[in-house]
């Protein structure tokens, strides 16, 4: 029997992994599975609802109308010189992508306990595929936004797309990372403390009000503005808006803070997730 130290093992199973041994190579090897999950979720969604993708349009449209009435007409919040409908819609499109990424990845372990209990694949495949699937609905909503934007533009309203429009893919990627990071932090903790999952929907809702979705960030001054700067979504929403609608550009170091926060949250999430994924089946 070979017992020498020079043996080459394909894999070694040990009780505790280190904090940082995330196997990116393995996730890459399972990229076909990510594709299949995305395809599955997409097809399943289409086949189950009659209105199908229309739901993606109804939700932001109605929210925009409500926001325009409540915050625009009644509360008379300024929109930084941008037509209110476009102002709110742009914020909602961006925010709803982020929000659905967080809420849907947050119950990764609990929702997939059935599959996870029977077969091994890198657990990270699940949240990654969710984040990618959500890009599809984001695309549909973005399309709605662009349609309305063009209508306004043709009618000669004051919208001035800027060069920042080119940064949209980067912003989207950043949002995906951020949503993934926050989602997996929560999902890692929910394996042990279920009540956290109840907090997610609520927390995300509150988070929206700490993000310039219904008001421009320029309105916030004083010590509260620090909260806004520390919120990584602030820069994303503002830059997205600036790219399509023009207006006032935020100081760019805001974005730097936002990128830093994103990296920090994603990193924390990956480390926690990695720690939990091995033994979560025993506690779920």
């Amino acid at each position, binding site marked *: 029997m070979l017992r020498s130290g020079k043996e080459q093992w394909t894999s070694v199973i040990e009780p505790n992994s280190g904090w940082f041994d995330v196997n990116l190579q393995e996730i890459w*090897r399972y990229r076909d599975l990510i594709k299949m999950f995305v395809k599955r979720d997409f097809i399943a969604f289409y086949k189950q609802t009659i209105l199908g993708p229309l739901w993606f349009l109804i939700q932001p449209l109605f929210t925009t109308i409500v926001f325009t009435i409540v915050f625009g007409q009644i509360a008379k919040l300024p929109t930084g010189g941008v037509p209110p409908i476009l102002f709110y819609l742009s914020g909602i499109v961006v925010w709803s992508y982020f929000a659905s990424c967080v809420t849907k990845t947050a119950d990764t372990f609990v929702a997939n306990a059935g599959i996870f209990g029977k077969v091994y694949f890198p657990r990270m495949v699940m949240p990654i595929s969710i984040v990618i699937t959500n890009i599809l609905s984001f695309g549909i909503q973005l399309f709605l936004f662009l349609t309305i934007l063009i209508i306004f533009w043709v009618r000669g309203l004051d919208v001035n797309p800027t060069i920042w429009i080119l940064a949209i893919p980067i912003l989207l990627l950043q949002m995906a990372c951020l949503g993934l990071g926050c989602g997996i932090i929560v999902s890692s903790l929910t394996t042990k403390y279920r009540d956290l999952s109840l907090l997610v929907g609520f927390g995300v809702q509150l988070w929206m009000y700490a993000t310039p979705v219904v008001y421009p960030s320029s309105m916030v001054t004083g010590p509260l503005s620090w909260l806004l700067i520390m919120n990584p979504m602030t820069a994303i929403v503002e830059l997205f808006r600036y790219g399509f609608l023009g207006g006032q550009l935020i100081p760019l170091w805001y974005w730097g803070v936002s990128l830093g926060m994103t990296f920090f949250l994603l990193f924390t999430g990956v480390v926690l997730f990695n720690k939990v994924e091995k033994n979560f089946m*025993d506690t779920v």
Partner: protein
Amino acid sequence: MSEVAIQVENVSKQYQLGTIGSGTLYRDLQSWWARFRAQEDPNTKVGQSDVAKLGGEKQQFWALRDVSFDIKQGEIVGIIGRNGAGKSTLLKILSKITGPTSGKIKIQGRVASLLEVGTGFHPELTGRENVYLNGTILGMRKYEIDHKFDEIVEFAEIAQFIDTPVKRYSSGMYVRLAFAVAAHLDPEILVIDEVLAVGDAQFQKKCLGKLSEVSKGGKTVLFVSHNMQAVQNLCTKGMLLESGRLSMVGNVRDVVTRYNSYIYQDELSVENCSRTGGSGGIKLRNVVFVDQLSNKINEIFSDSPARLRIEADVGENYRNKMITIGVGVDTIEGTRLFTCLSPTNELAIRTCDGALQVTCYFNNLPFVPGKYLVSAAIIDSGDTLDMAEHCCSFQIIRQGDFYQPNDPTHGSLDIPCRFTADC
């Protein structure tokens, strides 16, 4: 061929008993607070004692204890043991579904584990899409599935329905497709839990055939089953687990024999056998072989009549009802020899008040000498009220020739026969 494929070193797995959820956050904080004040942790941590007692209650449980073994490449190993002996836990650790509490496992080669067929099948997707989905979940790459797709469809015998959503499949088709995908995995190490108990007999045979084909191709296979026949037919090596510890490794025949003697050393009864029952309106109380004087007996001559007495308690709602009683006899390896059912027509058994006593008469039990197991069930128009699996055992002895050895390859039946030669 002598290279080690799997090396397991002192693997243990501990589970926390009781409810996990309410109270744990509190207890975590309590432990943390105790440690913070440098006091003894009131909730003993993993790995300190066999069963930590907390408030007189068992809180921790070792599903596996210091299990070590090596499996060489190309070996087909059957893992056997009672329910709760740790077989499934071992497979789960080997397939990385859960981690060990301590110990180390080294694996050489790609592992595919099959703890369930059809994991991740989505009802809305077509057969084709599910083949790809299930295949990738099991660790195949897309091009590998492309390559084997036709073979999979052919094996499942559902070519004409491949583009239909699986929610419209019959359960048989569903299972066939699911197994077909699994059967075409091409790993170096295959870990299989009791998944062969699916499909009809013909398909099961096909699966077993495929499995032995796989194993002949030099693959390492780990197989967990309660079907001793299947284990003996497929495996070369056996491993016996007894309450979390590995008690025997060796030739499969020896291990199965040891398992059988170990599992049936206690006298079987309705109380200590595995029970499945739905409503439980009628409960089996006792199943025994008796002689003419109603004394319990264990030994029966193969050519003599025998009577099996079945006693049951009848619930109030089940009085004066027509029921069916089923009796099955298995070999000690778990192969069903025969099943008989009481009549369902006007001659059906009627329940009376309180206790029910039924006797089942056999003209003879023509089996070769050895130990056999009886299962009994009470059925109410297709609905199983109570079933006791292996609730009674009996020993067949042969009158006269005690010298004729019992060759296991000669089968289980002892049919009287006579030879004449005309020449």
